[in-house]
């Protein structure tokens, strides 16, 4: 096919569940490419000699390489090509913001629409998994070096895969009773089916990674004790797990959750299946979700699926400044989530039983840009009004959990409590200790945590082999 013709094939849409239908279930929203669609989309790739898309990928996937295998209809080879550098393709194909990473660099995007790299990644990963032929790569001879990974989230799972493939003996310590970190407790089933996370974890275990759940490092054991047990290197990928509240009146009323709690109850503990699962969660009829990020969208769409009649996204700036992916905002709108923009809560009102029954809001307008470069929202005097709600989810971000730094002498943190680590290597101030992901950067994305983990993996490998 010559280049002109290629450009005429439009970017292939991914089939999705209809909004009215999916707003009532927890099944995945996008259904994934069929083989036919995948071939059409793969055919759009120009196989550039200098593939800019790869530069945009935090985990260096050979994108033209795997797409070539798709065109050859060798989907297993395509999956293996991705797995050379990415242990979690089925996850990344779903939750990566490709539009600001690989796809934004795609040459096709200059004139038209870029190749749908994320959808193709998802297609091959799902193909491999459902075909049941997930092969374990040949592993090198064991090096005899022991590495402890703290946290079984995106960073921890990635580095464990990278280090076990280099012949090291890897043990992950996870605080919760289940592995996956934010992939399991945070991102809802309808965006990332938990069976996929389980399969990726299973793959690591088959490669020889050991996972000890219910081990909260800093409480169950300290970093110093891990060294004493004979670990040669330690990677901290503990996430930024502490919730942030606004500290406004009434915020502790019943029915008001942090997004962490709301999503943990519903995803990890499967409260949406109560009473089949024991953990309950409130099922609000009128729900306000405070915030404009992906976590806010996830919370709002979860509340809708649990039977809410009205779900409001309450965000103090405008849609332009919203940190959520455009796709997530679009999905939320399609499902009927109502957006109250330039709006901020100032107080919650409770009923006689201490349950939230209303939220006092204030209108905002955009003023001068602040430190983040976004225009600062300024309250409009006298614009307060009341919204009837019986549930609220505060999704305005997270901060560092102090458990590890507080129990690890010599580990330097910055003024927000995040661990200071070298950007290129992940090295911390403590010899033999690396860190990456949200505990270094503050809340970011799954793929950035994975990218940081890959850099640390290279650095740890060098360190171990030079000792």
């Amino acid at each position: 096919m010559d280049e002109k013709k290629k450009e005429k094939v439009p970017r292939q849409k991914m089939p999705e569940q209809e909004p009215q239908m999916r707003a009532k279930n927890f099944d995945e929203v996008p259904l994934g490419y069929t083989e036919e669609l995948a071939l059409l989309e793969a055919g759009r790739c120009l196989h550039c000699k200098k593939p800019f898309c790869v530069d945009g990928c935090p985990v260096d996937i050979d994108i033209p390489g795997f797409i070539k295998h798709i065109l050859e209809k060798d989907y297993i080879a395509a999956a293996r090509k991705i797995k050379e550098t990415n242990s979690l393709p089925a996850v990344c194909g779903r939750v990566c913001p490709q539009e600001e990473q690989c796809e934004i660099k795609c040459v096709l995007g200059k004139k038209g629409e870029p190749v749908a790299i994320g959808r193709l990644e998802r297609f091959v990963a799902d193909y491999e998994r459902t075909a049941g032929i997930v092969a374990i790569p040949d592993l090198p001879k064991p090096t005899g070096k022991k590495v402890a990974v703290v946290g079984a989230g995106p960073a921890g799972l990635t580095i464990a895969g990278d280090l076990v493939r280099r012949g090291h003996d890897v043990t992950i310590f996870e605080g919760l009773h289940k592995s996956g970190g934010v992939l399991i407790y945070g991102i809802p089933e309808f965006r990332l089916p938990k069976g996929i996370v389980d399969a990726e974890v299973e793959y690591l275990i088959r490669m020889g990674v050991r996972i000890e759940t219910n081990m909260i490092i800093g409480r169950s054991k300290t970093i110093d004790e891990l060294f004493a047990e004979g670990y040669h290197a330690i990677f901290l990928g503990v996430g930024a797990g502490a919730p942030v509240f606004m500290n406004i009146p009434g915020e502790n009323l019943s029915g008001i959750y942090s997004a962490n709690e709301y999503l943990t109850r519903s995803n990890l503990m499967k409260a949406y299946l109560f009473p089949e699962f024991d953990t309950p969660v409130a099922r609000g009829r009128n729900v306000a979700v405070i915030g404009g990020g992906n976590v806010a969208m996830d919370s709002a769409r979860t509340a809708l699926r649990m039977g809410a009649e009205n779900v409001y996204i309450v965000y103090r700036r405008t849609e332009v400044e919203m940190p959520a992916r455009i796709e997530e905002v679009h999905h939320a709108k399609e499902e009927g989530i109502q957006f109250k923009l330039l709006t901020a809560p100032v107080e919650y009102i409770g009923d006689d039983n201490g349950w939230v029954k209303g939220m006092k809001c204030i209108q905002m307008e955009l003023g001068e840009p602040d430190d983040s470069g976004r225009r600062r929202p300024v309250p409009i005097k006298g614009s307060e009004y009341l919204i009837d709600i019986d549930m609220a989810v505060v999704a305005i971000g997270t901060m560092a959990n102090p458990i590890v730094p507080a129990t690890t002498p010599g580990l330097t943190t910055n003024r927000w409590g995040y661990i200071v680590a070298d950007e290129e290597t992940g090295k911390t101030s403590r010899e033999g200790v690396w860190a990456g992901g949200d505990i270094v950067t503050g809340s970011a994305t799954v793929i950035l945590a994975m990218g940081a983990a890959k850099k640390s993996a290279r650095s740890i490998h060098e360190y171990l082999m030079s000792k």
Partner: protein
Amino acid sequence: MNEILDKSYLSEQVISMVVSAPEIAARRKAGQFIVLMTAENGERIPLTIADENKERGAITIIFQIVGKTTACLAGMNVGERIYSILGPLGSPTEIENFGLTVCVGGGVGIGVVYPIAKALKEAGNRVISIIGARSKNILILEEEMREASDELLVATDDGSYGFHGFVSEVLQKLIDSGTRIDRVFAVGPVPMMRVICDVTRPHKIKTIVSLNPIMVDATGMCGACRVAVGGKTKFACVDGPEFDGHEVDFRLLATRLRMYEAEEKKAMEAHRCHCHG
């Protein structure tokens, strides 16, 4: 690990279990707790570690059957394994030689105040304990508390044993009789802790209470357990579970504890049906 080694009923509704958990047993301190799940589809519930046995690598938990999870746990027998146990969690009790300390325990709260009393005595304090229950037949740990204390006072609501009345009245009498108390530790139902604080406040006796709000992860991640202390929001799981009782908003605590009353009832009823076929 997680194997039930001993199980005994302290009263009809309160059970003591010794569970194999060597790493927790080796490092736990008074005032700390665990989070356990009885099954994969179960709920995560916090339970205080009442005691440890380092040689056996075991911890003791004491719990009352109040909902589905505790009912399921009560249904488990020696030799079975608990699905998951995480700990030790929470900040340990601040233990030093304060002088004369009074440990007040009500109902199943006696199981929580027991390790505190033990640790205080070991640290050289003179320990007076006041324990109480609705009635004699549901009073737990009397012998253990007697052993952990220099003096033990007992109260029952119905007068079937010891002083006829509440533990707070016993404490009030103790203060009125001129006993100079350096610190009070009180654990029990929310109204009991609130009243104890009301008794000690005018005398400026520092009073530590152990709070039991609903928790999920119990590692500072979710904020389910937020309590108001001195007008500030705190997470009981990592900032507590013990706080200065004179600063605690007990009304908020009681309200938040009732958040899932309807669901808890529903789960318990379904569980009963299940148990009895």
